[in-house]
């Protein structure tokens, strides 16, 4: 799973743990999840309702007055039906050294870039752990060496990324997958080094008054695969992921003006072959706002209204279903002792009637329990092979998760 280069970073990180450091601290969670589907599956091999358990402990220790630290975050999931979703990962295994004008991190880590809510175009360092969450918000740990240079004109982050992580996809029995399924065992790489290819990235971030700005560059293996039709080892049709070498520039901006947040992300990517087989550089963007009504109806609750435009120059040839779409969403934050929150959003396709409805809500119980209710509804997805969401058109679901934090 990990390459030789990344293993050497790992062992280097482990050697940095001082022999006599104070005992570190443990935290984390264990969680149980139940998913109920509205319809029977598209493919008879797929499951109906599903139970799954996961755990994510975290170990942290620091020394040198907090200037050096080690963080270890393993993750494991067991899934009732989908063997691909039963998986383990090292989300984080990082050594950090912070000095006055720089910070150095080596090991496996997660990094987030960007400002928008509906999709994260600029965010490119980590591979998506798609079996974890269909919205692409969950990420796999990425081996890296990251040097941050800090000055009055912002922070420059430089990344060397040895070792590529393949995107995870649901297995034969799994729901919320393409049909035919993706066979990850046959992944094809443009680079002769395959998953050993070393990627590079850089990012500058700064803020000027109400404006938060980020400019980023990435050169390496695309995190987004395209697919070729093939066969799995049982002779069944399967999609084979192909990972191109790309170059990507990204720019993100947020203006925080009173109760308005204005958000903008744009990327320009070259080297990525699109669905028509063409290798053309393209531009994609997300732009929108979040406005918050504070203390609605004389209560402590805040109501946020979010709208974003999702655009991809490639249109129907894009690898994403969000080539020309609009998000409308509403966020209700009760600001109560239990941190109760609701987010309801709908993405509309401007070409046809297809809609994607998303619900996320959560509430704390007692001091250590959290209950999360999530769901997605795929509405009026055209049953045609060119439609990227065709495989999930019968997979609308509601998911209840109960987590115990420690």
């Amino acid at each position, binding site marked *: 799973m990990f390459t030789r280069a990344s293993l050497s970073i790992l062992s280097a990180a482990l050697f940095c743990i001082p022999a006599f450091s104070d005992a570190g601290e443990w935290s984390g969670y264990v969680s149980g999840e139940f998913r109920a589907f509205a319809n029977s599956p598209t493919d008879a091999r797929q499951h109906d309702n599903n139970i799954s358990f996961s755990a994510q402990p975290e170990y942290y220790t620091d020394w040198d007055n907090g200037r050096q630290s080690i963080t270890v975050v393993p993750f494991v999931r067991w899934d009732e039906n989908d063997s691909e979703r039963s998986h383990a990962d090292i989300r984080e295994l990082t050594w950090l050294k912070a000095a006055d004008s720089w910070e150095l991190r080596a090991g496996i880590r997660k990094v*987030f870039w960007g400002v928008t809510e509906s999709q994260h175009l600029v965010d490119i360092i980590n591979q998506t752990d798609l079996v974890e969450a269909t919205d692409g918000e969950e990420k796999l740990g990425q081996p890296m060496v990251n040097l941050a240079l800090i000055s009055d004109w912002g922070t420059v982050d430089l990344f060397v990324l040895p070792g590529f992580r393949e995107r995870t996809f649901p297995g034969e029995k799994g729901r919320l997958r393409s049909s035919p399924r993706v066979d990850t065992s046959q992944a094809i790489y443009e680079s002769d080094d395959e998953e050993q290819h070393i990627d590079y990235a850089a990012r500058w971030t700064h803020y000027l008054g109400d404006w938060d700005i980020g400019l980023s560059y990435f050169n390496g293996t695309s995190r987004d695969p395209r697919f070729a039709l093939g066969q799995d080892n049982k002779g069944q049709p399967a999609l084979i992921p192909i990972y191109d070498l790309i170059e990507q520039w990204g720019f993100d901006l947020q203006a925080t003006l009173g109760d308005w947040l204005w958000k903008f992300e744009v990327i320009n990517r070259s080297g990525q072959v699109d669905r028509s087989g063409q290798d053309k550089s393209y531009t994609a963007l997300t732009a929108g706002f979040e406005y918050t009504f504070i203390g609605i109806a004389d209560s402590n609750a805040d109501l946020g209204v979010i709208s974003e435009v999702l655009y991809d120059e490639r249109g129907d040839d894009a690898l994403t279903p969000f080539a020309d779409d609009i998000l409308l969403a509403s966020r209700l934050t009760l*600001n109560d002792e239990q*941190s109760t929150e609701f987010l309801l959003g709908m993405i509309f396709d401007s070409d046809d009637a297809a809609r994607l409805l998303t619900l996320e809500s959560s509430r704390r119980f007692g001091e250590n329990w959290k209950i999360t209710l999530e769901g997605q509804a795929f509405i009026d997805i055209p049953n045609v092979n060119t439609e990227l969401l065709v495989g999930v058109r019968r997979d609308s679901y509601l998911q209840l998760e109960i*987590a115990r934090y420690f």
Partner: protein
Amino acid sequence: MHNFSLNIKHIGLFALLGLPLLAMAETPEEKGLAIAIEADKRDTGWQDQTASLEMVLRNRHGQESKRNIRTKTLEVDGDGDKSLSIFDSPRDIKGTAFLSYTHALVPDEQWLYLPALKRVKRISSNNKSGPFMGSEFSYEDLSSQEVEKYSYKYLRTEEIDGREAFVIERKPAYKYSGYTRLTTWMDTEMYQPLKIEFYDRKKALLKTLTYSGYQQYEGQFWRPTNMSVVNHLTKKSTDLHWKDYRFKTGLTSRDFDRNSLKRAR
């Protein structure tokens, strides 16, 4: 024309210091402002401060929930302070960190770090009157107290819980404040608040905050051990128990930037 009761000795002292005699004729507004300036002066020079606090939230039925927070604060000359709050519990938000550059009359600059997403979010800070962490404290109550944040009016001097206090009425200058006025009992010796009554936008008494267990640090700076606020409308209350106050620990603005937010523990 109030302070004719001042005796000759005082007048002599003022003359000696070269202060204008007009000082004697100060209005209640001037006296209120003078007390605020003196309180600010006495609490200047601590450079930086770290502390931990336990927050106990109690609903009208007496059910409790707790939060543990560590705070770091950097004194900023001529502006509001910079502060970093790190949440240790409830455990589901452990590692969440909140960075705030406070200002007297313009909105603060605030960032929130969400450890599960590894995401630093700039958040809207227009509204300082919202509840802090579901408690009865608002952001406004907990941010640094700059002189320019209010207009002042001295009301009287009276005894409260065995201590002599100036009673001062303050009106927020910040247009998004959640309050129309605050009545503050300011200890005449420590120049620190003993009690504050908050009046909401409808001018009704909203909540009462009391301070206790003051201790002096570095031979100069008074800090309370307990702060307790009761909301008279909802009957909910929140207690803050402070401990491990440390001053002049050598923190710099570098400990209050967006990079430090990501590694706050």
